[in-house]
């Protein structure tokens, strides 16, 4: 059984000017321990999908959500707000684009770490939390955990903060990790390092990952399976290898062609709309899809 099963997910926002449809029936599934990428350009609906999975959009008055999101067999829509809050930070956690702004500037790392650990162990003492945090920071290759714990986020480098965020996200051993363009705000070498680290850790703990990105190179390295999303529709899905080697959908081909190359050369523009981009979804021989 899949850990996360999203069926026919639709989302529209009610605005003064009318209703704006954002998602038009997203379907995706993540098995236990699987790493799945969701790829698309800005505004295609990648991030809102992640927020629905986290249950962050359900309480927004203007958002209308249809379809089904099942986590561990339970329909998220059937859960109360309290139950959804209980899932977050324990069974599902998330890593963000900009690690430095994701940490509160007025607290040192140690108390922020404790808040995260307290989600699983409400009565954890400061000393216990410190001990756990030290171990977790060593896991993400931080060599001086004590110094990091006693620093404010703005005293640490972006790469350091990213590792702290990864350690926090995995601290409660979540079943599902949502990574929303992690490290986009960092430089490329640091980004590569932290992604390696994340890949190793999720493999060790058997964590499933939904990896949201527009960076095709990173996706190809990291993900087992890939979904390509265009204007709120999944246009292509399959094992990463198959999608990258034989892209079947016109939009996927356009996206791949827009990759900058080290050797230079002009980039083709992706046209805003092309009737072929609305072709039916291309599936790469995935059983059960």
């Amino acid at each position, binding site marked *: 059984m899949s850990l996360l099963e999203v069926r026919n997910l639709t989302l529209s926002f009610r605005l003064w000017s009318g209703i704006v449809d954002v998602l038009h029936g997203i379907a995706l599934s993540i098995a236990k321990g699987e790493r799945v990428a969701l790829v698309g350009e800005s505004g295609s609906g990648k991030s809102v999908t992640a927020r629905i999975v*986290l249950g*962050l959009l359900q309480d927004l*008055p203007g958002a209308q959500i249809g379809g089904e999101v099942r986590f561990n067999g339970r329909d998220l829509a059937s859960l109360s707000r309290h139950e959804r*809050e*209980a*899932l*977050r*930070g*324990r069974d599902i*956690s*998330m890593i*963000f*684009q*900009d690690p*430095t*702004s*994701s*940490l*509160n*500037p*007025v*607290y040192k790392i140690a108390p922020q770490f404790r*808040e*995260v650990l307290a*989600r699983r162990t409400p009565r954890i003492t400061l000393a216990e939390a410190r001990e756990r945090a030290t171990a977790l920071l060593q896991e993400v290759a931080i060599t001086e955990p004590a110094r990091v714990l006693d620093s404010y986020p*703005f005293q640490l480098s972006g790469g350091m903060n990213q590792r702290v*965020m990864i350690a926090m996200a995995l601290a409660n051993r979540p079943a599902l990790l949502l990574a929303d363009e992690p490290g986009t705000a960092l430089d490329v070498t640091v980004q590569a390092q932290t992604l390696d680290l994340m890949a190793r850790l999720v493999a060790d703990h058997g964590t499933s990952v939904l990896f949201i990105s527009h960076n095709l190179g990173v996706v190809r390295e990291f993900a087992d399976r890939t979904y390509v999303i265009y204007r709120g529709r999944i246009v292509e899905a399959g094992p990463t290898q198959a999608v990258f080697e034989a892209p079947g959908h016109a939009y996927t081909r356009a996206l791949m062609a827009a990759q900058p190359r080290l050797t230079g050369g002009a980039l083709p523009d992706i046209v805003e709309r092309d009737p072929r981009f609305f072709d039916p979804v291309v599936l790469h021989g995935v059983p059960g899809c």
Partner: protein
Amino acid sequence: MRRALTILTGNPLTLTGLVLVALVVLAAALADVLAPFPVHRGAVVDFVNFNKPPSSDYWMGTDLVGRDLFSRILYAYRISLILCAVVLAIAVPVGVVLGVMAGYLGGWWEYGLMRVTDVFLSIPPLVLAMSIMGVLSPTLVNGMMAVTAMWWPWYTRLVYNITRGEKAEGYVLAAEVIGATRAHIMFREILPNCVPAIVTKMTLDAGFVILIVSSLSFLGLGVQPPTPDLGSMVAEGAKYLPDSWWLSVFPGLAILIAVFGFNLIGDGLRDILGAHR
């Protein structure tokens, strides 16, 4: 903390402010010891020594019923400072809590709270306080209420704006993602980020509260005689300018020192707290 103290005392203007405020606070706290004529704070009449210019006996002269002005100014400071503390102690928490709620919760909270503050802010502060005092009887407690009523909306505005900015920060989303409650996010995550601005505004406001309270009593709507009050002393003396200049000049200077001192500290704090953001 130590760094902040170094910067605070390193700037000559801020240091001046600290010294002035310290003097005012000491004067108020030690009024019983420092005042040459402690009984003169009440309804005492000494017609032998009335309306005397400054001398070695009466450093700042005497008023129209022969009371020592210096003693009365010390006691007036005490009342001003207490008033100031009470006003800020009520207005700041109320304003800050409402501001964070309006900024973070949004929707009807935002509409309701911000329109109410708009109503308060649309009335000139002195007029608002005067009308409250005019309806109620002019006593010390009513004075505090009137000034408090006109003060909290400024804090709501300030904190609302900061909260709107902080709400977009990653750490708020990160807290939502780990399932933090709304109260936790408002008061443990966002509020600490508003503290520098609140503290700065409080210091600046301490001076203005003293000024407003003095203005009210200058108009006869504040503390009533025979309780000494800087504003009413200035008002009383102004009738006898320029001959009996000491009657209004010394209380006026006393107001100036307190307001100036608080403002200098406020400016210094703004520099320190604004620097690392």
